[in-house]
Structures are given as structure tokens and as C-alpha cells.
């Protein structure tokens, strides 16, 4: 069974699917707007000089998120059926 884990646990090169946003409403709205909406496939492109922030590819765009914000994005492993 697929367990949910925070996006911040995703390593470089790994994929996951966003399951739920565990943040306050305002942050959730911004996350969805920029591409991190439920059901979206996310790919971790790695970080820069430090571990934080990390860059994620969602809906075709490359977005950098801080660790503390990525922690609120709960994902499941597994590819999108499409």
C-alpha cells in the first residue's frame, strides 16, 4: 500500500504524485497556483549549493521550494496512469 510522505523527502531524480496539501489555506492556494496541486506528478530536480531549497518539476515548470514548505506537501510514490 502506498504510504504518504512529505515532498521534502523526495530525492533527486525521484518522482511522486501529490496527494494532499497539509498547510494553511493561504499557502495551499499559492502552492496549487504555482503547480503543486493534488494529483499532480512531481519530479525532484535536486538542489543547488545547499540542500535547501530544492527544485521540483511540476506541470512542466521548474519551481524551487523551501524545505519547510515542501514538508507540507504530502505525496505518494507511483506514476500517473496516463
Amino acid at each position, binding site marked *: 500500500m502506498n504510504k504518504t510522505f512529505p515532498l521534502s523527502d523526495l530525492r533527486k531524480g525521484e518522482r511522486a504524485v501529490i496527494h494532499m496539501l497539509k498547510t494553511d489555506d*493561504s499557502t495551499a492556494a*499559492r502552492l496549487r*497556483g504555482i503547480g503543486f496541486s493534488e494529483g499532480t506528478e512531481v*519530479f525532484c530536480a535536486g538542489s543547488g549549493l545547499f540542500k535547501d*531549497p530544492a527544485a521540483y518539476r511540476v506541470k*512542466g515548470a521548474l*519551481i524551487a521550494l523551501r524545505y519547510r514548505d515542501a514538508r507540507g506537501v504530502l505525496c505518494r510514490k507511483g506514476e500517473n496512469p496516463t
Partner: protein
Amino acid sequence: MKPVQKKFPAPYRYDWLKKAPSDLIVALAGNPNVGKSTLFNALTGMHQHTGNWAGKTVENARGKTVYDGRRLVIADLPGCYSLYADAAEETAAAEFLKSGVADLAVTVCDGGALERGLALFLQIRALCPKTILCINFMDEVEKQGAYIDIDGLSAALHAPVVALSAKKKGAAETLLPEIISLSLQPSPDAPSGADVFAEAKQLCASYVHRTRSEPKKSLLDRLLLGKWTAIPCMLLLLTLIFWITLEGANIPSALLSSFFTGLENDLTALLLRLSLPAGLISFLVAGVWRTTGWVVSVMLPPMAIFFPLFTMAEDCGLLPRIAFLLDYPFSKCAACGKQALTMCMGFGCNAVGVTGCRIIDSPRERMIAVLTNAFVPCNGRFPILVALITIFMSGSGQSGFISALYLTGFVMLAILLTFLVSKLLSLTLCKGMPSFFALEIPPLRVPKVGEIIARSVFDRILFVLGRAISAAAPAGALLWICANWQIGDGTLLSILASVLEVPAKWMGLDGEILLGFLFAFPANEIVLPVIVMAYTGLSSLAETPDYGQLGLLLLQNGWTMLTAVNTALFTLCHWPCATTLKTIYKETGSRKWTLLAAVLPTLCGVVLCILTNLFASLF
């Protein structure tokens, strides 16, 4: 990520935009980085107007064009990811669309990130039923081997879809016939689903076909973002921009200088013919005119070079990468990675850097960025640093490259101070939690060099001329008065210098140096000339001698390496110039914070100078 966001006035202020009933008001909306500005510029050319409005700190940009006999007023809305980004406050774009002022809208999106753009399109259409979907960067879509079924998408959306590559000539114009034809149709009955994200996803699944693999990191990106290569790349880029600015500015500065000096004689002759008293003539020509000319010739060329370079770096996508790489240390100071960008702007001009702080969303983090911007040396302060470095540190006659390295070193110090003070502020006056930070890193794209240079240079020239006249002219007036007002044995200037001597000595400086900084409050460009003036006892600004002569003059007046170091430190850390303070007041609306913005760097400068002085006296 634009340095300045756009803003919108209350809807009723747009009533006057329609000169004829057949005019159309078109709202241009979309995510950031989708090429909206390219389209806007292509459609409106020079018929644009960027204004400032009180209230929201965002500028409004609207332009007009004429097509098929009809006048179209295009409102360039601020780029946003969602119309309802903040549960409490809607974006300026949402407000504008809600007002119903626009007859129709064009939602621009990146063909490579269509799903996200579609979600915004659906949100926009709920507010403005007549909306065109414009898919940009089709050239990149093709290169990636993806395929978008435009007709299918258009049918499914019940809305016109225009696919183009905005950078191609004539591409933007393909929008115009669509706009006109849509305006003639009745308002469509667009069913709005509750979940725009699910709908967008489903649409993309049906009409967009792309390869599954991730785009490979280009070589350039591997260098810019690589663990070991990122910092050297950034330093190299910074040094390169400095070098081009400083070297490139030399000849134009000299030309402008001789132009202004040349006109002095003509001006004097003219004023003599008007039978003005000699004193007044000297005041106007040697005081006001000369100082203003000085500031313009020193300030204009570097700014006219630096800002286009900076805009090019922004346009091609370098700036978000820098913010991405440097966010961590900033977040440790409870600040924001975007502060790196405002600091970069500050290198050109601190006032521009302060205005640029609008890109930082959190008010607390924005305040930190505003208060610390003055630690970054602006173009006006570079000549001081370069002169000090050349004369005392790298030795005249040495290659300009060594000087550039020293300069970079000082800049690193300024950056370090910025971090320390930011951290201090975050622990005391600007306490709070780090805010939400999401940064889009767009693909590296070739900037539109020609257009940038044309626009940027034009904007810069206007700004500099305005600043020179409003700041330098009064400074020149005051300076002339102090230098010519005989009091006892000396002039008011020399008396002021001796008064300042006492505090100056504590800092390892002398009265004349402090005087120079004080008089340069309106414009840092005149620090050195005022110091020279104070030393030589001349009654007006003279041409700054070349480094050899300047060096001799300074040594004659008791300068040592220590004096040079302290002067350099004080150059980095002293009150912001008048224009910057005025801008800070405008941005913060608070006298208290503006005062702090003046006191903070000054305090650091004084402390640093006293410390180096003490430290040196131990040897």
C-alpha cells in the same frame, strides 16, 4: 521575475480610457515568465504608459494600438499564478478583471507549462467570459517534440486559441484579428467547473501529447547550478558586469564632462550679457552648473550600461537562478532569497534596489531588504572605491583586472555586512517567521538585446537627468556658498572641516573626508571632488586630477593606507543618498523606518572605522 510589479487603480479610474464606444479594453494576463511583456511591447510599441498609483505598490502598464480602424487599449496585468493566491487578499489582476472594465482578456501561457496556464485561463474566464488562450513559446514546444492539438483544445474550451512564438516577428499581430472577431461575438456561455486544476489536467491529457522524459539539463545550467561551479560562475558574472560598466563608462564620462565644462564659458558670457553680478554668475556657473554637470557625466554612463546588462541577466533567466542558489543563507537570516536580486539592483542604484524590493512578498522580509540595501555600493560609490584601490592598494599602472579583484573583495565585504545586519534585524526589529517561498526557475532564454538596450538606456537617461537636477543642483549651490563665504581666516567650508576633525580622527579619517561625505548626501558622486576641493581650498569643484596627482594630494594631506581603508569602509557603510532615502520613505510610508535606514549603515560605518583604527594603533 520583474523588478517592479504592476499595479491597478480602482476600476472607475479607467472610465476615461475609452475615447470612442468602439474602443476595446483588452486585459493581458498570465503566469509570470510567459512572455506577456514581449507581446505587450510588440503590440503597443512605444505607445505605452507606466504609471504609479497610491495604494497598492504595483505600477500600472497600459498601452494602445490600432487595428482594423478600432483603438485597442491593452492593460498589462501583473503576472500571477492564481487569481486567488491569498485567501485574504485578491491579486491586483483579479481586482481588475472583477471590475468588468475589460471587454475581453487574453491569457498568455507557456506551451511547456500548459496545464498550469490552463488553470489560470479557466479562473480568468469565470470573471471575463470573452477570453482568448494564447500559447507562447511554441518553438520550444516543437523542440521538445511535444504536440498540442490546438483545434481540439479550442473546441473543448469553446474559446479561441492562438499558438505563437512571441519573439518571432509579426507573431503578436496574429492576436489582433482574433481579438476583434471575439469582440463582435456574443458573450460565450462558458461552463465553469468547480475544480480548475482537475479540469486543466484533463484537458492537457486529451490535447497535449509530449514525451515522458524530463528535459535534460543544458550545459549552461549544469555550470550555473552545479555544486562546485555555481559560485565561481556568479563571481565571474558579477566581476564581468562591473568591469564592463566601469571600463565602458570611461569615454562617455569624459566626453560628457568636457561637454559640460565647455558650455561653462558660453553660459558665463550669456549671464554677463544679462548684467548679473559676478558673484551670482560664479554661483550659478561654478556652483550649480558645474556640480550638476559633474554628477550627470559621472552618473549617467555607468547607469546606462549597468541597467541594460542587469535587465538582460533578468530576461535570460539568470536572476531566479541566483535567488535559488542564495536563498538558504538568506532564509537563515529570516530573509528572502529575492533579496539577492534587490542587492544586485542596488549595485546600479540603491534607489532602484529599494523600489525593487517590491518583489519580496512578506512585508517583514521586504523591510529587511530595504533597510540593508544601502550596504551594497551603488554606481556612484564605485569611483571612490576604484580611486582608493588604484592609488593605495593595487598600485597605479597595474592591470585593471587586479583592481577589479580588489573591488570584488570589497563587494564581498558589503554582502557579508548585509547578511549580518539582516540577521540582526530579524532578531530584533523585524522579528518573525520565514515566509512561504516558491520561486519559478524559467528555462534559459536568449534576451532581446536590442529592445532592452533601447528601452533601458532611455529610461536611465531620464532618471539620471531628473536626479541630477533635483539633487545635485542644490548640492552645488550649497557647496559654492560654503566655499565662498569668508569667515575670519577661512571659509565656512574650512570651518566645518575643522569642526568635523575631532570625530573624524576617531574613525581614522579627517574633517575634509567627513565633509565630503556630508556634502555628497544628495549624490555620492561628489564625495571625492568635495574632498579635493576642501584640501586645495579652491572655491569651486575642479576636475578631479588623475590618480597620480590625486594620490600626491592625499598623501600631502596626511593620508596613509589606513586612511584609505577607513574611507573605503565608510564608503560602504554610510547613510543612503537623498534619492534613496526619499524612495525608502515612499515605499515604507514611515518616517521611523526611513530614519533607521539612515542611521543603521552610518552606525556600522562609524563602528567599523573606529575598530580598524584601534586595531591598527596596536601595531
